[in-house]
């Protein structure tokens, strides 16, 4: 019975979390440097490559790694004292701030109150008197419960694939994909990249 209780949360986590692919024969303790390969823009968003690259270096720095950006544009991240160098590449699979989300909903029309005031004035030619009358009518709509209405809003969505390969042998040693969604592109990018870097840093 205890095993069953352990198994259920593990199954749930497995369902939502597909972990990284790791080369089991590679020793990450032998790595000294990660070279960041320049990131290409997403086809629909010029400048996205630079945004993601800046976010990557920012997050590595924030996690305490020594980040070196040379004048020629190459970026190196010192992760240890080993002699091996890994090349980190990032492919932007999704980068949008205008994905439309439609929300169907049901709602209660609580009704309304309509008041009509009729004001009439009548003047008799043979008389000096003028008569004024006022009538008021009020109608109340009791309301109803409606379904099938919808509204929409836009959200941002960012997806990346991170890959690391051994620079000497060329063999792929680690890979994983991430995506995140939110209302602001900048924040969404930030969380998505931070999640990726958080996984990478656990290797060293």
């Amino acid at each position: 019975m205890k095993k069953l209780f352990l198994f259920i949360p593990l199954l749930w986590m497995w369902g939502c979390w597909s972990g990284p692919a790791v080369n089991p024969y590679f020793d990450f303790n032998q790595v000294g440097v990660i070279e960041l390969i320049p990131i290409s823009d997403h086809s629909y968003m010029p400048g996205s490559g630079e945004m993601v690259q800046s976010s990557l270096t920012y997050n590595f720095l924030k996690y305490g790694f020594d980040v070196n950006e040379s004048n020629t544009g190459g970026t190196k991240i010192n992760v240890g004292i080993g002699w091996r160098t890994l090349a980190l590449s990032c492919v932007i699979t999704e980068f949008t701030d205008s994905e439309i989300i439609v929300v169907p909903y049901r709602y209660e029309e609580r009704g309304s109150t309509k008041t009509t005031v009729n004001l009439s004035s009548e003047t008799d030619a043979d008389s000096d008197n003028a008569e004024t009358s006022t009538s008021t009518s009020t109608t109340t709509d009791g309301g109803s419960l409606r379904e099938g209405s919808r509204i929409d809003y836009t959200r941002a969505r960012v997806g990346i694939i991170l890959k690391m390969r051994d620079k000497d042998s060329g063999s792929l040693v680690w890979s994983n994909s991430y995506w995140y969604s939110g209302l602001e592109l900048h924040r969404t990018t930030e969380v998505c990249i931070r999640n990726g870097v958080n996984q990478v840093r656990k290797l060293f």
Partner: protein
Amino acid sequence: MKYFSLILATTLLLGGSGDAMAKASAAMKAGLFNEALTHINEAQRLDQANPDVYRMKAFLHEVLDQPKLALAAWKSCLDLSKDEKLSTEAKIHILILSETL
């Protein structure tokens, strides 16, 4: 004889959830996230089983830097969702928000 009529019509809308959702959508589009959240809370009261409303609410809490409330909204969204994509999205947000708290 001279007649004239003056008609005054007053419609008193008390603000159903449909109205609240429309207002929330408009506020979100304008970047008024606090206002949108107020309207979403109102709408949620009348449509408590709608996972999409919880997703909207969770997004708003995240953008307003309220991770605990966002996490609670995503969990409600996951509980109510029957859509696989929405459930996956909720799980990703729950995982990441749980790590940051």
